[in-house]
């Protein structure tokens, strides 16, 4: 039986959340198998070393000849384990729409302009303090066909590994004050307001660079105990 600590709130969304229509035929209906906590917390996670990470992958505004349109932003924060310790040298992948709300992905048919100077994909490794940092432009909102007049709030997709099987995380980061946030079924699949708040970045005036870019800070906590190897 997987035992969750009494002090560890769990804000994970369910697999089935009918308001997000695509879950209806994709959420498993049978009960999931529960394995012992050892498997969950101590099994090694994917070895991500084959995923290429170049130093300039963390600056999404410098991947083309010119600069992308939109509001230049710095996205930074720390990646921590459940005990608040930094998760060092772990892979962080991000992807997003451009400032007009359009993805480069060929399956995106939203009639908003592509930006020849913006792909919207980045990677980096956290540093010795678990810090990641990206430079990008603020993504736009975009429509989706989940329900009438449905629009996704502006968001950046994040993918993180961490050291153990439990720590793998794919999620989305939202921007503070976005009026679409209360209306979004994907974010509202998290049943608790505090849990939803964990996905909203904070404006960071300290990190904001004068005459250059606004900064947003978003810390990420990965699941799994004992994620930092002990000294022998």
């Amino acid at each position, binding site marked *: 039986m997987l035992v969750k*600590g009494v002090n*560890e*709130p769990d*804000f*994970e*969304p*369910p*697999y089935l959340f009918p308001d*997000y229509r*695509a*879950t*209806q*035929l*994709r959420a*498993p*209906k*049978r009960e*999931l*198998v*529960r*394995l012992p906590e050892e*498997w969950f917390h101590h*099994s*090694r*996670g*994917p*070895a*991500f070393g*084959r995923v*290429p990470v170049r130093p300039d992958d963390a600056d999404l505004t410098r991947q083309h000849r010119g600069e992308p349109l939109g509001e230049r932003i710095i996205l930074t924060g720390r990646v*921590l384990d459940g*005990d608040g310790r930094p998760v060092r040298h772990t892979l962080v*992948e991000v*992807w997003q*729409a451009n400032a007009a709300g359009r*993805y*480069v*992905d*060929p*399956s*995106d048919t939203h009639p908003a302009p592509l930006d020849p100077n913006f*792909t919207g*994909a980045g990677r980096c490794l956290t540093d010795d303090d678990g810090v990641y940092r990206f430079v990008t432009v603020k993504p736009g909102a975009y429509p989706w066909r989940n329900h009438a007049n449905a629009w996704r709030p502006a968001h950046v*997709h994040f*993918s993180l590994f961490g050291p153990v099987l439990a720590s*793998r995380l*794919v*999620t*989305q980061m939202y921007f503070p004050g976005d009026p679409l946030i209360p209306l979004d079924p*994907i*974010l509202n699949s998290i049943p608790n307001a*505090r*849990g*939803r708040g*964990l*996905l909203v970045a904070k404006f960071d005036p300290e990190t904001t660079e004068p005459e250059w870019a606004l900064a947003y800070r978003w810390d*990420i*906590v*990965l*699941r799994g105990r004992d994620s930092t190897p002990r000294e022998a």
Partner: protein
Amino acid sequence: MTAPTPSQTVGPFFGFAVPFDGDANAVEHGVRIEGQVLDGAGESVPDAILEVFAGEQFARCRTDSEGAFHFTVAKTAHLEVFVFARGLLRHLATRMYFPDADLDSDPVLQRVDPERRHTLVASPAEGGLRFDIRLQGEDETVFIQL
């Protein structure tokens, strides 16, 4: 203790960002595994991305327009499998066992209903192995609570 950051779906538009060159091949020469991801209506899932891993081996494969994926891995006892897709608010975890695995002594399979164990075992196929993933419905793949 700090609350873990909740999961959100990988969405439909990851194909330009998450795949990488050679991502489906954990090794250059090994066992080829092919399969398809299917939803509760038996329709293929063209917007999923899978990760398999075991020890130092790691591979990633996005499904194609038919929901099909493939991996090349070195033979091992089993692979851990993660499934990400539009419509999955959290990823799903499962395992793929090789056809010759000792299914009766495996500690994880001991916890799986014997009638459903076959959903975790690849079958021999031309050129390698076949392993389909059914997210829902008849013969739903056994998934592990994360």
